[in-house]
């Protein structure tokens, strides 16, 4: 059995192990992609516009990834996160077109996110509905709500307050990137150094054992779901500020990239869901796609890339066995094949 450093293994124990391929394969792949596209399409790939655009456009995706990581660690899938992005953007836009100021719009956009989080928790924790199914349902409802808010067409134009909220620049870096950095620090702290994060990991890897250890499993899961929706709503409002419009289908395209990055990131560094891994994964995937697009690939390349990355990441993770929600079914299968090593099953 391998020995694993903890979440603090972001700075791993030995330098040699730190640079091993299995730990940071993402970084190596990223460098490889960079080299390939620099040689392939240097005139477009190596420009400042390409890179600043990449950095800030991926910031929103990365924020969604960071948000959904919290319930994911606790074993809950929040598939509605992407639609929360769209819904909160639409809601905020709607408010600004109906006489409300920027600040109000932002605050209510965030509150809408909290409401969704509470709703999801009610289904998943309260009623015990499987998180996958529950949030699938929620996301569909949210898509409808977005349609209502936008009257099925695009809402164009946002007040300057919102605009500066989403597209200001601070020391030359677009503000979404700053938001991302702050969010990344917060989520990294929660997952690695806060007791709450420990509880989430415990719940995800052994809910009953966590409960018996005195962890408030329902409460923690609920909070993680609310934090996820809140974070997604924040991303949505930032997105609105950045692009200045909201359309019905705004959120949909964020679901796959966000989860792909989370899972791919979980194969990096600490072999658990972790923040640096997710960030590396986000930008790795974006680099690959941008490079391919600049090289003239068709637009379907994006979906292909994310799909393959997600499958590869999940296959790798199952092999190492570090993803809580999926692990259960694999573990059950392995237990059936092998039999418990030392502790016999107690009679029921």
């Amino acid at each position, binding site marked *: *059995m391998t020995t694993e450093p903890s979440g603090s293994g972001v700075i791993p124990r030995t330098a040699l192990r730190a640079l091993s391929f299995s730990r940071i394969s993402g970084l190596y792949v990223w460098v490889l992609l960079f080299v390939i596209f620099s040689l392939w399409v240097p005139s477009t790939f190596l420009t400042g516009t390409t890179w600043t655009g990449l950095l800030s456009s991926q910031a929103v995706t990365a924020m969604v990834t960071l948000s959904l990581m919290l319930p994911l660690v606790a074993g809950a899938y929040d598939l509605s996160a992407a639609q929360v992005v769209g819904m909160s953007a639409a809601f905020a836009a709607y408010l600004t077109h109906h006489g409300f100021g920027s600040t109000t719009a932002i605050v209510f956009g965030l509150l809408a996110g909290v409401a969704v989080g509470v709703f999801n928790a009610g289904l998943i924790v309260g009623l015990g509905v499987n998180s996958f199914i529950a949030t699938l349902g929620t996301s569909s409802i949210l898509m409808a709500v977005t349609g209502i808010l936008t009257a099925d067409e695009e809402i164009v134009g946002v007040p300057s307050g919102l605009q500066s909220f989403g597209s200001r620049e601070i020391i030359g870096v677009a503000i979404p990137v700053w938001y991302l950095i702050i969010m990344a620090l917060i989520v990294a702290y929660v997952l690695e*150094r806060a007791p709450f994060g*420990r509880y989430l990991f415990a719940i995800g890897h052994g809910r*009953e054992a966590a409960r018996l250890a005195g962890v408030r499993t329902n409460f923690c899961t609920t909070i993680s779901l609310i934090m996820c929706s809140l974070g997604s709503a924040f991303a949505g409002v930032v997105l609105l500020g950045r692009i200045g419009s909201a359309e019905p289908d705004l959120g949909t395209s964020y679901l796959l990239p966000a989860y792909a990055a989370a899972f791919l990131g979980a194969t990096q560094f600490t072999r658990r869901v972790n923040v640096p891994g997710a960030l590396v994964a986000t930008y790795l995937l974006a680099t690959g796609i941008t490079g391919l697009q600049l090289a003239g690939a068709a637009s379907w390349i994006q979906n292909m890339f994310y799909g393959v990355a997600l499958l590869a990441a999940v296959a790798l993770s199952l092999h190492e066995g570090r993803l809580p929600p999926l692990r259960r079914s694999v573990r059950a299968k392995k237990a059936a094949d092998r039999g418990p090593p030392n502790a016999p099953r107690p009679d029921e």
Partner: protein
Amino acid sequence: METSIDNLSLGIGDSGADGEREVLRLRHVSKTFPGQRALDDVSIGLTAGRIRALVGQNGSGKSTLVKTLAGVHEPDSGAQAWLDDNEFALGSAAAAHAAGLRFVHQDLGLVWELDAVDNLALGRGYRSKYWIKRRDQVTAARAQLARFGLEHLDLSVPVSDLAAVERAMLAIARGLWVDPDQPPVRVLVLDEPTASLAVGEVDRLFEAIRRVVASGAAVLYVSHRLDEVLSLADSLTVLRDGKVVAERGVEGLEHRTLVRLIVGHEIEQALADAAADTQRGPGAVALGVTRLTGRVLRDVSFDVARGEVLGIAGLTGSGREELPYLLGGARPWGGGSVRIDGRELTSLTPRFALESGVVLVPADRHRQSAIPELLARENIVLPRIDAGGSGLWISVRKERRETREWMHRLEVRPENPDRLFAAFSGGNQQKIVLARAMRLGPRILVIDEPVQGVDVGAKAAIWAELAQIAAGGVSILVASSDAEDLALLCERVLVLRHGVIVRELSGAAVTTSNILGETIAGDLTGSAAT
């Protein structure tokens, strides 16, 4: 001491008396893994119609030997194996199967959702090739089951609804089922078959095993449970550190001698000494239970004194497995109350129990008492995470240091807090679980099956630690299906039957036979309610 141990191992071939055929013969079996010699020139023989037990600690090579036989591992060169004087190749599952060896592993290999008929067919295939004829299949199944006394088994329910002992016997029946025109099975290897059986069920299983050998086959019986080994087996082989250290008949072998052979030194005296150190005589009442009721338990009342070690005995379904979880707040109560430190409580949650000073250590290390995929130190600190003065920042360095100290104190090997919990052996896992409990500074420690799946050496260490905690004033409540363990550690034992306390044993009356006797008395068929 060394000499007397040598005298006890009377040499190879002792049990293969003249005139009795050796069915299975293994010679010079060695297995080297990187950095470890798991088996060192092991030779073993099985006689037709006889049961040989294979005993040894975790890490003694017991399971490696069984796996080599089963074809999971390939032995080092020089190993030889014969079945009925026909040589066969070790390290191949197909060769073992073809030679006539059958295995029943610890988890039985049954599919829980399927019924007995389908499970029987799993090993051998259905009688008809393209269209299953249920009636024919059932008839054939019944015939096979009758050979093991299972003719009245319910064939219509999934095997998960059967009693544990019925499942174990079903697994054996399946292993021994061959086509009439094929040669019968010659060797049956059973790996910890009684692991999840209660006392009364074990006799039924033994009956089935005796039937197997009566037909001329040989049985290799691998087990931790020494009293079972002494009562069932004709001869035994003791492995230690990969070598055969003893091979002899069971006749006249005493339990403590056997332990000495397995561990290599005297431990029971140390246990007895440690147990004697615990406070005797009445102390202040630390826990008062009044009319506690659960799903099985009915109006159970008793007291536990400070520093007392109280045992709870009983068959499956007696309430023994329920009581610890009620006290720990893990299961809801149907009534009753509990008095701790003067406070009267009529319900508990796990959190509330912990706050009241009651620490529960569940039996199941995989699902309840620990989280295998977390690190050792993460497991140890989980119920009370130290996050600095503000409770907001976990210092991993401090955590590592603190947990390493606990691991050192309980002699967990390897002493690495960053190691995955699942990577430790059963005995070390249990020590980590115990460290977690002790770190909370409990007033009352409630443990379910403290040494289940733990090798003899680790068992002794855990017992000693528990005795020490009790001496320090902590009340310990131990629920166990092992009468021997209870007799060793507890000063007082409550025996449960059908949800009520039927007997209280204390002082000199706390003996293995008394506990066993009271536990199964009145249960005439010997089978436990499930």
